[in-house]
Every structure is written in C-alpha cells, then in structure tokens.
C-alpha cells in the first residue's frame, strides 16, 4: 500500500520540480534575461553580500586584522578622510554603506556593453542592471537620488515613458539624458534609450528557463563566479575582419577568431583558495592544422613536473611541438619577415651547429621543457638559489653526428669564446672552463673568482635532455620519471611556503646581501625581510594550470592560502 502512495508523491514532486526551480531562479539569471543576445561584453558580480560576510568571519580576515601592514594603513590620514567622505555620501543617500552592500548591490550586478560599429566607437551602448535583495530599499535609494539631485539642480526633469506596456523613466540633466526602469527588485539604468528598449524586448522573448547569456556564462564556467567578464566574439567580427586586412599576423588572428565561440574571465572564492579562470570556447577541434598540433602537444603535462625537488621555489614547464611552433611562426611573420629571420638564424646559430636549422634542429627540439628555481640547503654557505633549465632533444635515428653532440659542442664553443673575451678584459679575475664527468655524463662548467660564491654555470646532456644550470650539482640531481595522464596540466608553480622557509633559513645571509647592495641599511633590510615574511605567511602557493576538453581551453591561476578564506 505504501509503495503506490510513495510513487504518486514522487510523480507529483517531479512534476512540480521544474516550476519550483524556475520560481527560485538565481538573481543573476533574472538579470541576464534582459541582456540582448548581440551584446559584446558583460561584466558581472554576484553574491557579494554572502561572500563579504563569510570572508569577514574567516581566519584569514582575523589574521589580516592583526597585521601590522593593515594597521599602519588604517591609521593614515587618507583612511580617515575616506571614512569621513563616505559618511557624507551615506548622509546624502540616507543609506548606510552596509545597507548598500547587503540590500542593493549584494545579490547581482551586471553591466552589458555593446561596442559601436568599426570607426564609430562613440555609438557604443551600456546598460547597468541591479538585482537588489530588498525592493523597498532599492526604490528608496532611487527616489532619494532623484530627490537630492532635483534639489541641487543637477536633475532638471523626470519624465515617465511607456514601451510595450512597461513603464520607465527619463532623467533630463544639464548635459545628458539617462533612463531607468525599476521593477520590484530589478533596476535597469542606461544613457541610451534604444538599449533599454532592446532589453525590454529581450526579456519578453527570453525563454522561461535559461536565457542566451545564462547559457553563455555557464559554458564559460562563470555561473558561480563572484566576479566575471564574458565576451561574445560575434559582436566583434566586423572589427576583427577589418583588422585582418593589416598584415599576415592579423590575417591569422582573423582566421582563428572565426572559431572562437566565447571568452570568459572569472574570479572564484573557495574555502582556502582564490581562483582566476580564463576560458576560451571554440567550435570543437580547431580547423587550423598547425594550431591543432600545437594544442595537442601542450595538452599533456611535461615529464619534468614529476621530479621536482622538495625545495623548489618556482617551476615553469610545458610541452610544445617544434614543427607546429615553427609553422605557426611562419604564418605569423609573413614571407618577407620569415625569410629574413630564418636566413639570419641559419647564418649564425645554424652555422655554429653545422646543421640546417629549419630541417634538422628546430623540429627536433622538445616536446618537454622546464625551468626551476631551487632553494639552497639550510647548511649551504650561499644564499643564492639554483636554477635549472631542461629541454628535451629528439635526435632522428641514425643521425650523424647526433643533435645532442652538436648542441653540446656549440655551447662549449660559446663558453670558450666567453672565457677568452672575459679573461682578456679582466686579467685580474679570470674565468676557467672545466670539464667533469658524473655517472657517465660529461658536464661542462665555468668557474673562477669572478663568479659569485655558489655560482658555477654548467651544461650537459642527460637522459636526452639539454641541461643548463647554475651549479653542476643540479645536473647530478636531475632525474625524470614518466608523466601520469591528467586533465589538468601545470604550467607554473610558485611555492610561497618554500620561499618563506628559504628566507627564514638564510635570513642572515640575505640581510647581509641586501645591506651590501648599498641601497638598504642594516635595519632597512631587516624591515624589508620582516614585511616580506608577514605577507608570505598568508600564502601557500600559486599555480597556473591549463585544462582542455573538446571545444574549451581553460587556464586557471589558483592562489592557495594558508588559512581559510571563507568561514
């Protein structure tokens, strides 16, 4: 008996579900129903009230309140002036800043922008849309602004107009006329009446579930962003087409532009991190062959990410297809410039290597590359971090001499020239060229009293990688391991945690280096390091990642914090 009743109940709930969902549509979606489809650009902010309250009560805010940096700033005359002037605005509007944020701006704000036609930027149009939490507060604010500006003579006349059964107002000022529509919790404001009418039209045509811009924002991953910028590429087609008539680079851009379906920038506040995303939507697989190959290579993480030392301060790395990069470069440069560039490169680098640069060298560079900065050990006598650059070389089978040997000899030759020229110029502090061998790997390096302590630039080929480092130990320590398939491809990582440890471990040496620089006195250098430590304590790391799936490429810059950002 119970099962049929439960079944009936489920059917009723499911039948009502879409209506319920629509009745509780998000404030942002409510505004986006007004935004005309051909709008070029949308700026948005949402849930400011919720985010502000959560951030205010977070451990991070608590830490910031105790920060000396902020305490110093809050005690400045500028800060006091800001407080006084805000009080004046609050008094004029009869609305506190807190009410403004909570009840008027705290739910959703959108600014829609239509660019003017090419050559006529003055015909651009803008529309500000606000979805307030409290309709009465919003109405009171609008009335108060009109009232105050009428009394001061800024507003000369307020007219009421009608369009498609919708009442809106025209504000006639000294130099300009602007228009607004107030409907419950929603306010639309513009200086262009045509845009307001287009918004009214759009709202009447928008489907009840999702508007065009809601779908666009969802595809761009901005539906939950606290702030964002979305661009509709079709609004710029004409301008890009005209731009494409100027040179080969722009022609390539115009070709690629046709494939772009959307572009979005978003700011996301998470529990313990801040994310800045940049997403480009395209028509599935790129129709441009060189770009497709370039993106396919860049779509996997570099093997170098699997073997980062624990004390890495900074790491940059990726993958590229040498031939695809070369082809893209060719298209960018145009015939004349590429002929000149490649002839120049062949005369110099190609001649030194004794190979055809375009056929035998550049296509065989990569795909993996990486650059890292590693903190010295705590016991090290020097404060100088070590740098390591690695580039994979792929020598075709049977090539004689192999590309690795050719490049190594060329670097050796350059180093010889450098030593000769330097020693001739500075006979009292000479450089020396040193060749050593470690685990079967030949390492070339430069030593001498001319170099900073701890610095010994070195080079080698190891495990198929060309290594350029600031100390031979980095070559000995270099290892690689197979990369794991991952949907997220790291491109950059800065570890603030390691940077903080590095500053603490080498504090004395860094302080001396700063003072010796003659820019900072002893106490000044201590202060600089103390300030830096105070700032670094708030952050864990910053990472730039690349993620791609059919039709969408996303770059994400994530800042991880040491404390929770939201309560």
């Amino acid at each position, binding site marked *: 008996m119970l099962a049929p009743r439960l079944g009936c109940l489920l059917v009723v709930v499911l039948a009502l579900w879409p209506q319920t969902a629509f009745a509780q549509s998000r404030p942002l979606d409510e505004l986006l129903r007004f935004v005309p489809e051909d709008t070029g650009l949308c*700026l948005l902010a949402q849930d400011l009230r919720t985010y502000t309250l959560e951030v205010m009560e977070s451990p991070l805010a608590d830490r910031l309140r105790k920060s000396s940096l902020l305490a110093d700033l809050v005690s400045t*005359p*500028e800060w006091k002036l800001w407080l006084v*002037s805000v009080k004046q605005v609050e008094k004029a509007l009869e609305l506190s800043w807190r009410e403004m944020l909570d009840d008027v701006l705290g739910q959703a704000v959108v600014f829609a922008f239509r660019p003017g036609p090419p050559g006529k*930027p003055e015909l651009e149009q803008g529309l500000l849309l606000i979805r307030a939490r409290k309709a009465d507060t919003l109405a009171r604010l609008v009335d108060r602004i009109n009232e105050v500006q009428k009394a001061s003579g800024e507003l000369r006349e307020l007219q009421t107009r009608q369009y498609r059964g919708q009442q809106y107002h025209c504000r006639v000022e000294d130099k300009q006329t602007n228009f607004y529509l107030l409907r419950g919790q929603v306010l639309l404001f513009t200086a262009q009446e045509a845009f307001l009418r287009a918004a009214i039209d759009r709202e009447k045509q928008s489907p009840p579930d999702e508007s065009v811009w809601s779908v666009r924002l969802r595809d761009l991953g901005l539906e939950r962003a606290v702030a964002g910028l979305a661009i509709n590429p079709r609004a710029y087609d004409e301008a890009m087409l005209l731009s494409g008539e100027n040179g080969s680079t722009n022609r390539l851009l115009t070709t690629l532009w046709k494939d772009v379906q959307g572009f979005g920038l978003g700011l996301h506040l998470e529990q313990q991190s801040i994310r800045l995303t940049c997403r480009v939507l395209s028509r599935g697989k790129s129709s441009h062959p060189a770009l497709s190959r370039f993106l396919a290579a860049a779509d996997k993480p570099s093997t170098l990410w699997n073997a980062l030392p624990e004390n890495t301060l900074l790491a940059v790395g990726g993958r590229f297809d040498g031939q695809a990069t070369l082809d893209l470069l060719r298209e960018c440069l145009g015939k004349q410039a590429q002929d000149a560039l490649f002839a120049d490169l062949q005369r110099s680098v190609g001649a030194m290597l004794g190979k055809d640069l375009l056929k035998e060298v550049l296509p065989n560079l990569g795909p993996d590359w990486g650059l890292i900065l590693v903190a010295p050990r705590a016991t090290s006598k020097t404060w100088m971090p070590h740098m390591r650059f690695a580039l994979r070389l792929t020598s075709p089978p049977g090539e004689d001499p192999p590309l690795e040997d050719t490049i190594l000899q060329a670097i050796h030759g350059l180093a010889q020239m450098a030593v000769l020229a330097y020693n001739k110029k*500075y006979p009292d502090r000479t450089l020396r060229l040193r060749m050593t061998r470690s685990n079967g790997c030949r390492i070339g390096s430069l030593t001498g009293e001319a170099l900073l302590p701890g610095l010994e630039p070195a080079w080698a080929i190891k495990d198929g990688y060309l290594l350029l480092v600031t100390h031979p130990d980095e070559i000995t320590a270099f290892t690689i391991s197979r990369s794991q398939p991952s949907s997220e491809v790291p491109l950059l990582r800065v570890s603030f945690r390691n940077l903080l440890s590095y500053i603490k471990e080498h504090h004395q040496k860094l302080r001396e280096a700063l003072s010796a620089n003659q820019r900072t006195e002893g106490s000044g250098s201590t202060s600089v390091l103390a300030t830096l430590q105070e700032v670094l304590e708030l952050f864990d790391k910053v990472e730039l990642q690349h993620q791609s799936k059919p039709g969408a490429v996303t770059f994400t810059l994530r800042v991880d914090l040491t404390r929770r950002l939201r309560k």
Partner: protein
Amino acid sequence: MNCTVCEELLQGHLDGDIPLEHLEHHLQNCSLCESARPAILRLLAGVALLQPPSPSATLPQRIKLAVTREALVRKQRRRWQVSLRATLAIAAALVILVVGWLWPGKDSQPVEPPSGDLVQQEPSPQPAIVPLRASVAEAGNAAVSLTARTASVLPSSFSWPWLDSADLPELLMPEQDSLPVSPMLESTLQPLQDAGASVQAGLAPVTDSARRAFSLLLRDLPVSRSLAAHKPG
C-alpha cells in the same frame, strides 16, 4: 680543454694577429686540445660566416635607434613596474575599502576628520541638502588617495634590490658587445617583437572594447560623472 697556449692562439687568430696555420699546427700536436678540435673548427667556421663589422653609412642612425630603443625598454620596464604596483595597490585598496568599512567595532568609534592638508574644508556644518555629486567625488578622491598611499608602501616592501640587473657586478658574462652573438640576437628578435606587437594590435578591437566598457560604466552612472571629471589635487 685547459690549454692556455691554445686559448692564446685562438684569441690571437680571432683578433687577426695570428694566421690559422699556427692554430692548426698546435691542434695537430697538442693531445689536450685534440678532443676539442671539431668544436674549435666549427666555431671558427661559424665566426667566418659572420659579416665583418665594417661601419656602414647608417651606423649613426642605428646607434641613435639603439639608444632610443634602450630608453624605450627602460621606460616600458618602469611602466610595467608601476602598473604592477598600481594593480596591487588598487586590489589592496578595494579589499580595504569593502572589508575595512565593515570592520567590527568601527561603528563604536567616532570618526574624527583628519588633520593636515588632505582636508581643505571642515565637513561640518553640513548644508541642508548635500550636493550628491560633490560628496561622491570626495569619497572617490579619498579612495584614490588611499590607493596612492597603498602604492607608496608597496615598492619599499616588495622590491628585491639585488635582483636588479643594473646592480649586478660584471661577473656572469663579459659585456655583451664582446660577443658576436649580441647583434645576431638583436636582429633575430626584432621580427618576433614585431609579430608580438602585431598580435597586440590585431586584438585591439576587443581589448579596447573592454577598456571603453569600464569608462562608459563610470561615465554613465548619475552620481559618478563628476568623479571622472574631477581629479584630485
């Protein structure tokens, strides 16, 4: 290689003082230098392909261009540093303006007007009807001053003086003009820089649009036009 004789012969040959035969003779007879023979010969072949540095008629113009470019690079570097600081300052000021205003306990303390040159007139007594634009403009100017204040704090806190290449002693490499690769790199990089500038120009319709959208947003608001027109002293 660690043979000083070879180094001297090589340098002498590069300077045009010693014929190639002397160096060849040494390479044939010195066991130390024998292993480096292919590299040295390749190096010499590469150097031989370089055009001799004879001064051309356009030399003065090129020097002038190089100096101008160097000045431009320095200016761009300064502008980049200023932009970074300004961005950091604006971000910091925005956070402070929003979060700071909601600071717990703020309302319990009376706000005293600041002393000094920043305030040109006493906020009280207030007129019966406060001119809204003037009030908003004043608040905006206060925000600008606060941003400038934040920016003035940042450079001393976040610059790493020893990373400034101008201050590094000449110890990493000889001066650039000692090496023939320097002019080579310069001429090689120029087309790439031109291509980069071209991409920037190609995207201008979109990037300009974003900038214009921000300007329009500020211009159209009924209470903020005076902000755009009014500049702090």
